[in-house]
């Protein structure tokens, strides 16, 4: 029974990891930008959700669409001001320079948040936080269940968007070969702008959910870390595998907590990550990459 409880928590955490990694995987898969500052964008979105709750008592789950709009705009600005300058580079240099640039952005965002809001840990506390459904002694937290549902819905919606709509197909074409896509009449610059802004908008989803847990300027790096692990586990460009990879990581982590204790929570994922990186760099999940 005890193990089952751990696995439930693992699944809940895992779907949150999936939400976190989605934006990172999109930017990486579509444009070849590894945005290390993604976790910090999530941190900023979490602050946005926190202040909405604190000042206007907006429920963190209601603030998801709001934060998505805000983060979409922020992503567009960020792309135009910073990342668009990298799109002229060949793909490997793009990657390197995007790591460097987002590295700098990470420092800027973290320190900006510390200056603005101090290093205190905060969180949103909607009335249902801490409430659970009890099934045969296994506790299912409301927020956890909502997180799982949200992760599944978002992943499915994204899949439908990328495979069924015209614009989604244009994005996939651009991801596969942007030069060919340009020759086929796709506006690559606009596709990049939209894709990047959308990738940042997903930080609004993850940030709002995370605001129910803990918000502080230093959480960004941890979430980037989880995002990176998932991108590697899923395989670069394999958007569909992000959520399964997240669930796997969550469960493995939960089992390691059960066996080795809480302090080593982060290590299990990283060890898995290093092993996959060395033995199977194309990712754990087979099948056609979604992008």
């Amino acid at each position, binding site marked *: 029974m005890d193990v089952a409880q751990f696995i439930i928590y693992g699944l809940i955490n895992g779907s949150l990891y999936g939400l976190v990694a989605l934006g990172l995987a999109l930017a990486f898969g579509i444009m070849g930008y590894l945005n290390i500052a993604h976790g910090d964008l999530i941190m900023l979105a979490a602050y946005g959700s926190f202040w909405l709750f604190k000042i206007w008592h907006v429920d963190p789950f209601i603030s998801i669409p709001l934060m998505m709009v805000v983060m979409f705009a922020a992503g567009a600005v960020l792309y135009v001001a910073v990342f668009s300058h990298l799109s002229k580079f060949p793909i490997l240099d793009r990657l390197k320079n995007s*790591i*460097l640039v987002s590295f*700098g952005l990470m420092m*800027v965002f973290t*320190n900006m948040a510390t200056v603005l809001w101090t290093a205190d840990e905060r969180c949103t506390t909607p009335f249902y936080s801490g409430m659970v459904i009890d099934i045969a002694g296994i506790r299912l937290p409301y927020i956890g269940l909502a997180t799982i549902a949200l992760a599944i819905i978002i992943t499915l919606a994204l899949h439908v968007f990328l495979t069924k709509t015209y614009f989604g197909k244009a994005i996939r074409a651009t991801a596969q070969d942007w030069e060919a896509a340009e020759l086929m009449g796709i506006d690559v610059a606009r596709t990049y702008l939209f894709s990047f802004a959308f990738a940042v908008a997903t930080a609004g989803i993850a940030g709002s959910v995370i605001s129910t847990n803990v918000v502080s300027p230093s959480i960004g790096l941890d979430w980037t870390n989880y995002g990176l692990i998932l991108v590697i586990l899923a395989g670069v460009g394999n958007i569909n595998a992000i959520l399964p990879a997240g669930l796997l990581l969550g469960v493995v982590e939960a089992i390691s907590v059960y066996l080795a204790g809480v302090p080593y929570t*982060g290590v299990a994922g990283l060890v898995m990550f290093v092993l996959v990186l060395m033995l199977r760099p194309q990712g754990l999940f087979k099948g056609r990459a979604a992008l």
Partner: protein
Amino acid sequence: MISTQGAWKKLSVAAGVVAFLAFIPTVMSAHYLVNVLSLFFLYVTIAQAWNILGGYTGQLNVGQAAFFGIGALATRLTWVVGLPFYLAFPVGGISALLLAGLIGLPSLRLRGHYFAIGTFALAIIARIVIGNILPGVALAPGEYAANYSLLPRYYLALSLAFSVTLVMHLVVNSKLGLGMMTTRDDEEAAEAIGVNTFKLKVLAFALSSFFTGLGGGFFAFYYISYYYYVPFDLLWCFEPLLITFVGGVATIIGPILGSILFVALKETFALTFGEISVLIFGVVFVFVVLFLPGGLISLSEKFRRLLHKSVV
């Protein structure tokens, strides 16, 4: 190629600067300046060490904290156990070298970005593990703490920064350095003309981690007491990278210039808002990567050209 005359000129300038720096503590007894300069030398050391691998060989080591930390840890532990410091100090460098061999080598076989991601993961793992295993404070051996003196630390840092700069200068101006830069610019082409790129990457990695470990050893010598995890803090990954790029990546002067700016900014805001200095430095860094790939050092070259043009 550098002419002999140019080399002599550079050498004499370097000797002059080092002599001047060596002279400072004898006149200025102000501990503040000596402290700040010691820190500056430390940053020069780890930035130069980062530069040989990241700047000249093109392998982005985003996990330098692991190597810095292991150097500090090894030096501090062997020193506390009773090894004299002049032996404990190189132990730090050697242990970083071992870590590079053990964990870094397999990841070097992976292409470009995987090395960056892999080293970053290594740094995070090291940080978590050390924080859990050694949660306490690392204390220096009692008799050393009792008669702590800044001067030996100052001179150790100065000679460390000087020797790492000298070694890097010699390496990058040799055939090896040329091979490293070729590896960075086009690995396939380098292989095709017979450059053993893997060997050169390993050499650059070895040099980089050894000096980073020595930097860690200095850290363990400089601070009487600190939490064991502090030298493993991820800041030690970011700062040398930022410093190198702001100053001028793949140049010898770049890391020095970057360290001057970094330490100056840090000290300016140390008493008011510590975070502001990193914020400013981060913005400058992003700007440099995007619009000034040669770093601030390239400004002087541009300026000189402009001047030359207007004169002619």
